[in-house]
C-alpha cells in the first residue's frame, strides 16, 4: 500500500462506475428474462441470441445511412414486433406442454437464431458505433468515461420507462394481473394470450437495448451475448427470478462486484471473472434460495 489513499479511492470509484455500466446491461437482459418468466413461466434461453439478432438489424439500418438514434428507435420497434411474433408463432402452440418442452424449444431457438445470424451477416467480427464520445469526464478526481455514463443512463432509462408503464397504464396493470393470476384475468375480460405476446415483445426490446449498448465494447459477432446472457441469468437468480426490482439490482450488483474482483483480487483477473461470478451466485443461493428480492406472498385465507 505505497499509494496514497486518495488515489486508491479514485481507482475504486472508477471500477465501480464502469461496473455499473456493465451491470446496467446485465440488468436490462435480466429484466427481459424476468418479464418472460413472470408472464409465461418460461426461462427464455434464446434471449441473448434474440438481442444479438436485433443488434445486427440495428447495424444494417445504420449501414444504410440512418443516424444512430432513429436507428435505435426503429430497432426497438422491430425487436418488439419480433418478440410478439415469436410468442404467437413458436411459444403459443406449446404453451400448455410440460416446461421441459418449452425449455428445449427456447434452446432450439438459441441455436437456430445464432446460426441464422451467422448465415445472414457472416461470422467475422464487426465494429458497432457508439452514440457516446470516447472521452472521460473528471468528477471529484474520478475519471468516468462518457461511454459508461451513457450506457448506464440508456439501460436504466429504459427500465424506468418500463416500470412507469407497468405501474400506471391500464395495459401494464392487465399484464401484471396476468402474471399473477391468468385465470382470474380472463374473467376480468383480459385477452391473456395477447398479454403474454406483449410480454415477449417488451422483453425482446429490452434485449435489443442491452445488445446495442454492449456491442461497441464487445464488438458485433454472432456469439457476443453468450457471456452477457450468463451474467444476466446470474443477476436474475441473484435478485429472485420473480422480481423485476431484483433483476435490476442483481444486474448492477453483479457488474460492480465482478469488476472489483477482476481488478483487485489477483487470482481472479480477467479469465476467472465468469466462474467467480457463478461462485458468488451459488453462495447467495445457498444462504437465500429465493434470491435477494424473491417474492414472499403474505396471504390470509
Amino acid at each position, binding site marked *: 500500500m505505497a499509494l496514497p489513499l486518495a488515489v486508491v479511492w479514485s481507482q475504486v470509484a472508477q471500477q465501480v462506475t464502469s461496473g455499473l455500466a456493465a451491470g446496467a446491461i446485465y440488468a436490462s437482459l435480466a429484466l427481459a428474462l424476468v418479464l418472460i418468466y413472470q408472464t409465461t413461466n418460461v426461462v427464455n434461453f434464446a434471449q441473448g441470441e434474440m438481442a444479438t439478432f436485433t443488434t445486427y438489424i440495428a447495424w444494417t439500418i445504420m449501414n444504410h445511412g440512418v443516424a444512430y438514434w432513429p436507428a435505435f428507435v426503429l430497432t426497438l420497434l422491430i425487436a418488439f414486433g419480433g418478440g410478439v411474433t415469436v410468442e404467437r408463432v413458436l411459444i403459443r402452440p406449446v404453451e400448455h406442454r410440460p416446461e421441459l418442452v418449452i425449455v428445449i424449444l427456447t434452446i432450439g431457438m438459441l441455436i437456430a437464431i445464432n446460426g441464422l445470424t451467422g448465415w445472414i451477416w457472416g461470422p467475422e467480427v464487426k465494429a458497432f458505433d457508439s452514440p457516446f464520445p470516447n472521452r472521460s469526464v473528471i468528477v471529484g478526481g474520478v475519471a468516468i468515461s462518457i461511454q459508461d455514463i451513457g450506457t448506464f443512463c440508456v439501460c436504466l432509462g429504459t427500465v424506468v420507462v418500463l416500470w412507469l408503464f407497468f405501474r400506471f397504464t391500464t395495459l401494464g396493470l392487465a399484464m401484471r394481473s396476468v402474471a*399473477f393470476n391468468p385465470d*382470474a384475468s*380472463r374473467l376480468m*375480460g383480459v385477452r*391473456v394470450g395477447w398479454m403474454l405476446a406483449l410480454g415477449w415483445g417488451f422483453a425482446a426490446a429490452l434485449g435489443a437495448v442491452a445488445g446495442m449498448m454492449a456491442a461497441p465494447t464487445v464488438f458485433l459477432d454472432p456469439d457476443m451475448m453468450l457471456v452477457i446472457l450468463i451474467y444476466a441469468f446470474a443477476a436474475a437468480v441473484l435478485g429472485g427470478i420473480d422480481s423485476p426490482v431484483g433483476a435490476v439490482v442483481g444486474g448492477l450488483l453483479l457488474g460492480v462486484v465482478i469488476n472489483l474482483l477482476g481488478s483487485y483480487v489477483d487470482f481472479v483477473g480477467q479469465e476467472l471473472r465468469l466462474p467467480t461470478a457463478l461462485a458468488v451466485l451459488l453462495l447467495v443461493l445457498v444462504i437465500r434460495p429465493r434470491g435477494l428480492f424473491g417474492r414472499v406472498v403474505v396471504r390470509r385465507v
Partner: protein
Amino acid sequence: MSLTVAEGEIVALLGPNGAGKTTTLRAVSGTVRHTGEIVFEGKQIARSKPDAVARAGVAHVPEGRGLFAELSVWENLRMGAYVRGERRTLRQEAPRVFKYFPWLERRRDQQAGTLSGGEQQMLALARALVGRPRLLMLDEPSLGLAPTVVHEIFRIVKELNADDGLTVLVVEQNANVALDAAARAYVLEVGQVAIEGESAELRRHEGVRKSYLGY
C-alpha cells in the same frame, strides 16, 4: 338440465357437493368445456371464450374469489373496471361501489392478500360490481365465513338488486341465506334440476327442508 334467469332477478342454485353447481357457472363464463346452449341477452355465448363472456357483461366471482393477492385493493378494482375501459368506468363506478363498501376506500392501498376472508369476499364482489355487469354470478360467497359476514354480503346483494335491478345467479351451500335473498331457486342433483320454484315454495317443500334447511 335447463335453467333461466330473468333480468332483475336473484336466482339461487342449491344442491349437494358434486351436483354440478359450480360447473354450471363455469359453463356460462366459458371456463369449462361443455355441450348445449347458453343464451345471454339473445346472443349465443356457449362457444365464447371467458374474456369475451366477461366483455358481454357477465361477471363471475369464482370459487376462491380469484383476487389478485399481490395487487392492492385499488388495483383489484381497476381490474374490475378493465372490461369496460378502465379509467372512465372506474371514475363513474367507484363512488357508487364505495357507497356499499365504505371501508374499501379507506384501505385502497392495502395488498389484497392481506385482507381477512370476509373482506376478500367483499372486495371480489366490489370488483365485479365496478364493471357494471348485467349478470353477476357468485360461487359460494359464504364459504368459510362467519355468519354475520355472510348476512352482510347477502344484505348488500339484495340492496344492489333493489337499487339497480342487478341480476344475480348465486351458488350456495347455505340454503337458508340463499332462499332468503333469491326470488327463485333450482335444486341440482347429479347434474340435473331436481326441484325448481319460488323461494317461498321451496321453503315449504319437504325434501328441501329436510336436506338443505335442516328442519
